[in-house]
């Protein structure tokens, strides 16, 4: 059986340019006649050698490792679909576990800071005055607002010595 009339040299060059030098990647219907033409055509063999260099370089890129843990998570999807639907409705921008993790982390940090910080009513009079000096507002608008909310008297936070008169 002869394959010589089935394919042109130009078409084989197109195959090499597109699919590279491994005939297994070429379309099955064109593979045999194309290989036959390569075997008989020096220019095509040169094109094959050039393409093979690129193929070898591409093959140095390692195969990404599988992730068994991810597979386990993927298999849980049918069981979790109701919860995920609900979360996805709230967070339509991607995987809903990411914002959930962010919220959980923020909550944990908040609880930690709250647990290790001293309560406000344990501050001494001196330290409370220092804090107020450092944070006392100076603009009249803010001061007026503070006065309206009880600034200058016992403000319910257990702090004493809070006065705006000096700044006015």
């Amino acid at each position: 059986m002869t394959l010589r009339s089935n394919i042109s040299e130009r078409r084989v060059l197109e195959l090499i340019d597109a699919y590279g030098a491994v005939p297994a990647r070429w379309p099955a219907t064109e593979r045999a006649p194309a290989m036959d033409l390569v075997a008989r055509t020096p220019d095509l063999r040169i094109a094959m050698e050039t393409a093979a260099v690129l193929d070898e370089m591409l093959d140095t890129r390692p195969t990404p490792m599988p992730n068994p843990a991810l597979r386990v998570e993927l298999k849980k999807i049918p069981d979790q679909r109701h919860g995920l639907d609900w979360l996805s409705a709230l967070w339509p921008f991607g995987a809903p576990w990411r914002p959930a993790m962010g919220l959980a982390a923020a909550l944990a940090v908040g609880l930690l800071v709250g647990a290790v910080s001293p309560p406000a009513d344990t501050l001494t009079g001196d330290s409370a005055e220092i804090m107020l000096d450092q944070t006392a507002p100076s603009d009249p608008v803010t001061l007026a607002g503070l006065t309206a909310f009880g600034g200058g008297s016992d403000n319910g936070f257990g702090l004493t010595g809070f006065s705006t008169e000096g700044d006015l």
Partner: protein
Amino acid sequence: MTETTRAGILADGLNASISSPPEEIDPDAALMVRVADGDAAAYRLLVDRHADRLLGFAERLVGDRATAEDIVQDSFLSVWRTAASWTPKAKVTTWLYRIVRNKGLDQIRKRKPTVNPDDVVLTDPGAAPDQGLHDRQTADMVRTAMDGLPERQRSAIVLVHYENLSGADASAALGISIEALESLLARGRRALRAALSSRRQELLETTR
């Protein structure tokens, strides 16, 4: 999907090894019919069959591991939710690749195309240390060159070269004709050859 169609697919799957050439039968078709009916066991079989290769595809497409894992998770969620939309006209594998590629495109559009080499898990090449180092350097150059390609060219090369899809399947996954696929492949390989040739020359000059 009609019951008649599903019955036909199931029959095809059962008779595949007896009467038809293997390449003409989609081994996942019968599985997809069950997934479309809400069969969680069939869905888990689909995960076992395809999760690893889809993760590899996603990782090569977007360039980092964490994003690739999100893409695969999101893709399988879509598979479970929209399995009924799959039609026997589309090969399951190409349908899955198309879902992952579309999710990957969304991610690529959201961010700048930067790659952190530490994000990619490398397999042990098992070669001598010098050869391994050389391959590692070449692999880094290839990854950089690949990431510099337009997304369509990159997808085409990843599907054909790394995922070993036929031209017909790769073009179906990308939703283009075979001629368009071959054009993308040829332009992509030409660009890679140019990029890797110049980098290779730089490497040679620094070692002199």
